[in-house]
C-alpha cells in the first residue's frame, strides 16, 4: 500500500499545488468586467482525457503491485518464477512498437502521409507480435510447471501481464481507428492529435512493462 500511497500523494500533491496557484490570491466574490482566462491552449480535451485515464491506469497497476508486495510479505509460500527467455524478445518488440509510434507522431507533425501509414502499421504489428509473444511466454511457463494456481508468484505474474496485454489491446482499438482514417486519405496533420495520444499511451505502457519486469526479476 505504501507504493500506492506515495503515487497518490504525488498525484494529489500536484493537483493541490496547481489549485493553490489558481486560488490563493483570488477573491472569488469580486466581479470583473474582463473575464479571466480559463484554459491554457496546449491543454486540449483529449490530452487532458488521456492524462486522467493514465492516472486511472497508474492506480490500477500500482494497486496490483502493492497487492503483489503485500501478498509476498504476508504469505510464506512465495516461490519466485524463472522468466522465460522469450520475455526479452517481447520487451524488444514493445520498445520498437513505442519507437514506431513516436516516428508516426513526428511524421504526422511534418505532414508525411506515407511515412505516417508505414510507422503506424509497424507500431501496431509490433504490438500484436508482443501480445503473441506474451502468449508464447504463458504457454512456456505452463509447460515448465508454473501453473496459475500453484503459487502466488505465478498467479501475480499472469495477472499483471494479462492486465498489461489487455491495456495494449484496448490501445489497438484506438490505433485501428487512426489507421482506418489514415488509409481513407485523411491528411496527416489532421491525424496528429490522435497519433499523438496513441504514442503517449504506448510510451506509458512501455514504462508499465519495464516496472512489471523489474518487479518480477527483483523478487
Amino acid at each position, binding site marked *: 500500500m505504501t507504493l500506492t500511497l506515495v503515487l497518490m500523494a504525488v498525484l494529489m500533491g500536484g493537483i493541490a499545488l496547481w489549485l493553490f496557484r489558481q486560488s490563493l490570491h483570488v*477573491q472569488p466574490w469580486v466581479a470583473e468586467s474582463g473575464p479571466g482566462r480559463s484554459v491554457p491552449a496546449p491543454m486540449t480535451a483529449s490530452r487532458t482525457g488521456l492524462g486522467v485515464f493514465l492516472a486511472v491506469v497508474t492506480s490500477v497497476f500500482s494497486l496490483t503491485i502493492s497487492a503483489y508486495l503485500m501478498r509476498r510479505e504476508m504469505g510464506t509460500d512465495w516461490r519466485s518464477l524463472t522468466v522465460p527467455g522469450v520475455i526479452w524478445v517481447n520487451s524488444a518488440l514493445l520498445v520498437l512498437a513505442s519507437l514506431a509510434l513516436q516516428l508516426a507522431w513526428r511524421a504526422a507533425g511534418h505532414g508525411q502521409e506515407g511515412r505516417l501509414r508505414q510507422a503506424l502499421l509497424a507500431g501496431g504489428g509490433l504490438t500484436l507480435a508482443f501480445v503473441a509473444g506474451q502468449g508464447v511466454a504463458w504457454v512456456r511457463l505452463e509447460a515448465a510447471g508454473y501453473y496459475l494456481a500453484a503459487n502466488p508468484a505465478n498467479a501475480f505474474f499472469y495477472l499483471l501481464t494479462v492486465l498489461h496485454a489487455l491495456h495494449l489491446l484496448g490501445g489497438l482499438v484506438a490505433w485501428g481507428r487512426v489507421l482506418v482514417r489514415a488509409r481513407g486519405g485523411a491528411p496527416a496533420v489532421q491525424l496528429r492529435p490522435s497519433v499523438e495520444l496513441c504514442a503517449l499511451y504506448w510510451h506509458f505502457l512501455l514504462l508499465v512493462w519495464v516496472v512489471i519486469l523489474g518487479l518480477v526479476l527483483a523478487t
Partner: protein
Amino acid sequence: MAMAIALIVLAGGSVLFYFLSPWHLTPLASNWGAIDVTIGISFWVTGVVFLAISLFMAVALIRYRHQRHRRALYEPENKRLELWLTGITTLGIAALLAPGLFVWGDFVRVPDDAHEVEVVGQQWHWSFRFPGRDGVFGGARNALIDEANPFGLVSDDPHGQDDVLVDRPGVLLPVDRPVKVLLRSKDVLHNFKVPAFRAKMDAIPGQVSYFWFTPTRTGEFQAVCAELCGIAHFAMRARVQVVEPERFEAWLAEQPTHGELIARGPGNPEAGKAHYAACQACHGARGQGQQATNAPRLAGLDADYLRRQLHNFRVGARGTREGDDYGRQMRPFAQSLPDEAAIRDLAAYIETLPVAPTAATVEGDRRMGERLYRSCATCHGPQGQGRSAYRAPRLAGMSDWYLVRQLQHFRAGIRGRHPRDAYGNQMVDMAQVLVDDAAIRDVVAYIHDLPGTASAVARTPGEEE
C-alpha cells in the same frame, strides 16, 4: 417555525434519550474501564457539539425566516471567525483522540504476567486450547485437521503434546489474572466477543491475532461471533465462566491434553456391544428404532453425536425438561452406563450397525420442505448425511416421527435450552425458521426422501450440475 421546533425537540430529545434509554453498555467485567471512560468522553463532547449546532440552526431559522423586506447579510468570509472555529474544533478533536490513543497504548501491550488461551473459530462453534504445563503452544495448521486432530496440531511438535484441548464452546478463566487471547480460525473470519469484557478481535484463517484483558468479576458470560461468518453466524456462541483461580486450575487439570486424546483413540465396538443389551428392548436389536416404544432409530448416527447425547442425558443437559417425557425416560438408561469410556464404546458399536431404510410416517409438502431444508443443508449436508465437523447428526433415513417431535421440542425450547447443551442451543435458534407444525412436517417429509449418501459431501446442491 415547525422546522425550528422539530430541531429543538429532536436535539433535546436525542440528548435526553442518552440518559433515559433502557439500553446501556453491559456491566463491565474486565479491566477495560478506560474504554468506557473514552466512550463517556465521546458522548459528552459530541453531545455538547450536537446540541450547540442544532440549537444554533433552530435560532437562525426562527430569527432569519423569510420576511418581505428583509435582506440577507452579504458576508463572503470572516477569516477571524473561521480560524477560531478551526482552532476550537482541533482542540475538541484532540480531546477525543488523546485519551483514545493513550488507552490504545495499553491495549496493544500485553502484560508480561498474562497467561495464554487460544480461541479457535469454526463455522459455527468455538473451541479452546491452553498451552499446558510447558506454557508453550504447539504448532498448528489447518491442513492437518481431521477427526482425530480437530485442532490441526503438528504431530511431531513436542510443545503440542501437553496442550490442553477444549473441543466444545465453553471455557473457564481465572478471575483477576490477565489473559492473552490468541485467535485462530479453521475456515472463515470470526470475531470473539464478550460484550462485558469490551475487548474483541477477529479470528483469521492462516494467521494468529490477539488481544488481552483481565476478567475482574466472577460469573458466567456469553461470547458471540461478531464477524459475519455464514448462515448460522447469529447462533455462534460460547459460554465463558470466570471463576476463582483454584476452581480454574482444577477444571483445567480435568481436561484432556492432545497426547492423551491421541493415546485414547476411538471407542471399542466389541466392548460397546455388551452395553447395547440395555438399549435393545426399545431401540431394537439393530438400532432400527420402534415407534411403538417411542425409541428413535440409532443406526446411521455418528459416534461423536451419540457420545454427546449420551453425555447430555447423563449430566442432565437433556431429558430433564417438563414436556420431554420420552427424554426423561431415556435419562436413567444413560445414567446406568458406568463411565465415559463406556459411552465411547457404546457409541462406537452403534456406529457399526447397518443402515436399513425406514418407512415414511409423516406426510408433508416436499417442495416446501426442499426450500426450508436450505437452512439445514450446510450443517446436516445436502443429502442429509450429517457432518461431524459441524456437530450435525445424520437426518436422512432417521425415524421421521422422531424428527418431528425433536423439531417441535427445539422450537419450543424444550430441548436445547440447557447451558451445557451448546449445539442444542443453536438448534433452538435454527428451528425458529420452521414457523409452524406444517413447516416441520414439510421439511421432515423432504428429509425422509434424502439418500443420505455422503458422496456429495463437499459440494452444495447447486454445484452438482
